[in-house]
């Protein structure tokens, strides 16, 4: 393990040399690349990367251009986890056999897999579960924008109740998505993963701290990164950070971590907790909830968020 990169403040952080390049094809205002930049800049160790099919993948490796300044692989929609686990296994084998390439000798590359929520919560769920059960030394990052954004905004099992998507549209007799969001963070913690955390790119300091903690943890680390999606959440591209702030300050996306599946710590407590209504109101995907007949859903939302926050606090207090 090499020394952890020192990041005292944002000025110091800004001296980082990015390993992720511009002129990728992500939408203007996309949070994916903000997340990727923060993660890659959190370490000075080499990184070996994979991505599942999805926005990040189709926008950063469209022939003849790559936006990656580190080795990167994409296989399919479901298997970025196993792809990087395979690379990690090869690293271990070659290290044991003294056959690592000279350029890799003595280095501690970090193996990182990226996937959207569709690739993580849905189609790639089994592969991730397998990788975590086997204990590969890797970090899996879910870029959670709560929708299949790359293919035009279909619902995934990360889509929250009431969101209008192209396969759960709000209509004359429907308020949109009917199911509650799957709790992936808890599911990954239940794997006994040494470190699981929910992060948001607007809270960069909290995020960097967790990413660095993840990098210094041996074994499979799961990071659920909220990725506000200008296109599918339907807000203006320059509002990405503002909407992200609404998400973290309304506690719709609480920021916390779980160590070894048993020790939960809340890492961010908003000074001024804002109503969930404000978060919902900032996004076109929830516009229909503000009709009188669906107002009750907003109340239910608030209760659900309050209950979950209560639950997190109780666990933290109990040290479990």
């Amino acid at each position, binding site marked *: 393990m090499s020394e952890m990169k020192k990041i005292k403040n944002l000025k110091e952080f800004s001296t980082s040399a990015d390993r992720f390049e511009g002129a990728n094809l992500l939408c203007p205002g996309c949070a994916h690349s903000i997340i990727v930049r923060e993660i890659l800049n959190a370490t000075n160790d080499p990184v070996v990367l994979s991505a599942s099919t999805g926005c990040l993948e189709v926008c950063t*490796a469209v*022939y003849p251009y790559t936006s990656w300044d580190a080795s990167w692989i994409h*296989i399919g929609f479901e298997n970025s986890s196993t792809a990087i*686990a395979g690379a990690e*296994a090869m690293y271990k084998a*070659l290290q044991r056999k003294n056959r690592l390439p000279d350029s890799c000798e003595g*280095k501690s590359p970090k193996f990182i897999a990226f996937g959207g929520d569709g690739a993580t919560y849905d189609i790639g769920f089994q*592969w991730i579960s397998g990788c975590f059960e086997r204990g590969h030394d890797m970090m899996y990052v879910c870029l959670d924008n709560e929708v299949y954004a790359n293919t035009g905004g279909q619902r995934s099992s990360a889509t929250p109740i009431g969101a209008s998507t192209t396969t759960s549209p709000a209509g004359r007799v429907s308020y949109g998505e009917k199911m509650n969001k799957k709790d992936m963070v808890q599911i990954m913690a239940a794997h006994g993963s040494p470190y699981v955390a929910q992060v948001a790119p607007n809270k960069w300091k909290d995020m960097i701290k967790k990413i660095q903690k993840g990098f210094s943890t041996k074994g499979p680390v799961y990071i659920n990164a909220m990725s506000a999606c200008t296109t599918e959440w339907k807000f203006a591209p320059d509002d990405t950070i503002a909407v992200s702030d609404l998400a973290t300050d309304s506690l719709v996306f609480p920021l916390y971590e779980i160590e070894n599946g048993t020790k939960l710590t809340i890492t961010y407590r908003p000074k001024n907790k804002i109503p969930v209504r404000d978060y919902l109101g900032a996004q076109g995907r929830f516009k229909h909830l503000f009709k009188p007949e669906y107002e009750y859903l907003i109340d239910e939302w608030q209760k659900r968020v309050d209950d979950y926050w209560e639950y997190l606090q109780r666990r933290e207090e109990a040290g479990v």
Partner: protein
Amino acid sequence: MAEKMELNEVEVWDGNMAASQALRQAQVDVVAAYPITPSTPIVQNYSSFLANGYIDGEFVMVESEHAAMSGCVGAAAAGGRVATATSSQGFALMSEVLYQASGMRLPIVLTVVNRALAAPLNVNGDHSDMYLGRDSGWIQLDAFNCQQAYDLTLMAFRIGEDHSIRLPVMVHQDGFITSHTAENVKPLSDDEAYEFVGEYKPMNAMLDLAKPVTYGVQTEEDWHFEHKARQHADLMTKVFGKVEEVFDAFEKKTGRKYNIVEEYMMEDAEVAIVALGTTVETSELVAKMMREEGIKAGVVAPRLFRPWPFEQIRKALANVKAVACLDRSSPNGALGALYNEVTASLYQNDNRPVITNYIYGLGGRDFTIDHAKEIFKELDANAKEGRPTTPLQQFVGLRGPKLSFY
């Protein structure tokens, strides 16, 4: 360092043990695998080698065959020797990633113990899975017995990993008939085998941190066609020469001769069976019997199923009068794959024999000496008449009314 295994000059191995010993001797860096009948013992044997100190590579027991091939692709792109094993439904499940492996030009070795595809579910040997792989861009070698399963697995690494080839290779053997039948196998010593396979030479490795590389790009209508054409061209032009070169080197080392298309008593044959797998040896035995009955019978067997040995098949069957193509897979609405390939090849010859198609042995149904005799007799009649005396496609060994077409 892994322990070396002391082997006898002649071992009694089944096909699964033969394949797993070859994987062990090749000192594979990463095996990511998932068990499935009838290839399960390959994975079990390998686990046992690991548990007893004979393996120093990584062995990753994944949660599905799709993950097995996904892990293999990641490991191979990282830059080292990679192999796995599967059969049937497992093969079908990993088929998405088979195309990814070959498209990224990653030389993974896959030992396939051939088995039928459901439904209805069946654990026995036929060639449905092998045929499923035929457009996947892999090199496909076919073993007809345990010795060949061992030999071809060793050779597969040397063929696929060559920098001029860089393609994944499947080594097929018949489920149960080969995989679970113990035969005499003459192995190389561990040192000799590894020396023959050679140390893995990385190429465009992800772990070469000085030269970051992107694998698995997206190409649309402006680039996709050229990349697929490049892969096809390499399969069509580079593989045959390399396979011959490796077969020659292996013959020098062991005395065991392999050919891209195997021929048995074809020098003066007038009628021939074309077959794959264990049926080849049955057909050879019967061809010899038919000679005693005055029928000039021979057998032709593609050792290399992909790329398809078009020229070698044309040559092997240049002078025959009647050919039977035996397909051990339900074509489900067409003539058999072997029939179509052989017929397309021979259509280019001046001499166009009568060619008929037999569907046989599905789900492990026995293919007997009597079946082969009957086929040779029908071929003899076809040869004498100069036209088919039977329907073009017939089912062999099937209960119920005779099933045939055209």
